[in-house]
């Protein structure tokens, strides 16, 4: 268990709140759709803070304007990857933005092992830091298969 105040990885918009129910997730999806965003789903077993590119669960749903449809895809992703981190991402294609406008976690593994900090002492009291994710200690093919 992680030692931060919420005992879990705190990436995304809502990590300090109780986990969102599917009904609450649908409301956020609707908000994004009402602002013209395109939703996409990504998953990973390597939630390192600088692991930018999680796996895409299909293409961004540029033409899906129905919150229930997006939520169905979230459920499909959870079925396939129950022990992975899954996030919903809303993309805003407006000129001058062309980036992510919303991002929050909708699935977590039962146990979040967190990260260690590796310090390499260098010259002049300088330290070089590496944030090491315990989740990736095991080979890729053996991760995320244990049941909780």
């Amino acid at each position, binding site marked *: 268990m992680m030692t931060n105040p919420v005992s879990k990885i705190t990436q995304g*918009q809502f990590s300090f709140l109780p986990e969102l129910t599917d009904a609450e997730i649908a409301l956020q999806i609707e*908000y994004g759709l009402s602002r013209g965003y395109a939703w996409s789903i990504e998953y990973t077993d390597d939630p*390192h803070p600088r692991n930018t590119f999680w796996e895409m669960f299909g293409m961004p749903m540029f033409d899906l304007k129905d919150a229930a449809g997006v939520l169905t895809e979230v459920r499909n992703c959870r079925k396939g990857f129950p022990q992975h981190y899954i996030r919903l991402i809303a993309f805003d294609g407006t000129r*001058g933005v062309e980036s*992510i406008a919303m991002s929050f976690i909708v699935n977590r593994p039962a146990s979040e092992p*967190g*990260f260690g900090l590796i310090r390499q002492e260098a010259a002049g009291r300088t330290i070089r*830091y590496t944030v090491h994710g315990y989740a990736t200690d095991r080979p890729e093919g053996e991760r995320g298969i244990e049941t909780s």
Partner: protein
Amino acid sequence: MAIATGASNGATAITDAKRRYQAGVLKYGQMGYWEPDYVPKDTDTVCLFRITPQEGVDPVEAAAAVAGESSTATWTVVWTDRLTACDSYRAKAFRLEPVPNGPGQFFAWVAYDIILFEEGSIANMTASLIGNVFSFKPLKAARLEDIRIPAAYVKTFKGPPTGLIVERERLDKFGRPLLGATTKPKLGLSGRNYGRVIYEGLKGGLDFMKDDENINSQPFMHWRDRFLYVMDAVNKASAATGEVKGSYLNVTAATMEDMYERAEFARQLGSVVVMIDLVIGWTAIQSMSNWARRNDMILHMHRAGHGTYTRQKNHGVSFRVIAKWLRLAGVDHLHAGTAVGKLEGDPLTVQGYYNVCRDSYTRRDLPRGIFFDQDWCDIRKVMPVASGGIHAGQMHQLLDLFGDDVVLQFGGGTIGHPAGIQAGAVANRVALEAMVKARNEGHNIRIEGAEILRKAARFCGPLQQALDTWGDITFNYTPTDASDFTPTAAVAR
């Protein structure tokens, strides 16, 4: 109401060259600095000055004098003007209006040809526009209220090295304001104690911690010590949360060489952000912006000192002009006011500053103090920072006023929490996330905000303690600098 052309004596330019360049003293109007028929070119810079002429000074002549003294004029006629295409170099006052409800004050519009300013140099532009003219005796007071910078000149600047869109991508933080806190006390902490505050705040849920503007390298904490302890705290917090974290390392110093040395050390230690103070001056700001661009660094600007010339309405430079210049000069974060906190700021006027930082195209908006349309030509956007006397109990007001693209900095409102710094950070992060979630769900946070906070406090003890401690704290004083077009009161709770 416009002032009629030629209504005042001496307001008409002398067109006969022989008479115009006879040795002696002419009125500025006669010299050609008042041109009521002038239509500004797309490539002109247009300034709006608020002027208060001395008793007995004709306002048209005063406006012409402002144009003259901020461009080519001197107090007497010089024949050497005739060696130049002097019509181009003369700024032209072309419109004058009394200030609504401002007896003795006038708005004067002045146009400047693009040849007057060196490309990409705020120092050069400011030396003209806010140079001698502000000490000119025939004016009791003068204030540069707003400026329209032509697209052609905007494109000579590189602008923010990172910009708020790319900053979010680097930090992996979207769809909510960022959270920060300034380390307190401002002065006296050792590097080790200082790093403790950073660690607690970041692990508790803040995205950023911040050096204060006057933390440089004093006897109690030398800069290298601060940087080393701070970066240990930042990396530890990043590992504890799985988030990218940062702390604005203030590299403000006596010389450029010192600043470069400090910035380079921050880079070596892996910091994502460095900080400078406005008092280092335009040239140093643009140099540090170039450095930040070369080194993938977010550049945080603390507007230390601005209140000496932005706050009083009758004299100085409006902060909206400073914000425009800083966006061109190239900073990524800019302190732009809170409206609800302890420092000066009428809510609509402050929103005007935020818009200048974040718009792709700023529209004329008189209630927010914006007099001109401004095309930003795709130059990157500055992330405004709200800092100074704000707390979790104001979260709904802050989100309603400023939206998502802002850094909310709760210094005392984090570190002064009765259960400690981490608890203070948790309170702020929970309040923020609960408010964003509720807004997205369709709640009217302006009306339901206090209730949303109370509900969130039911599952978050630290938020309840924060509300109990600060829930009733407000700073309701009448702003000194509000729009002339809509009277506004300070935000009530």
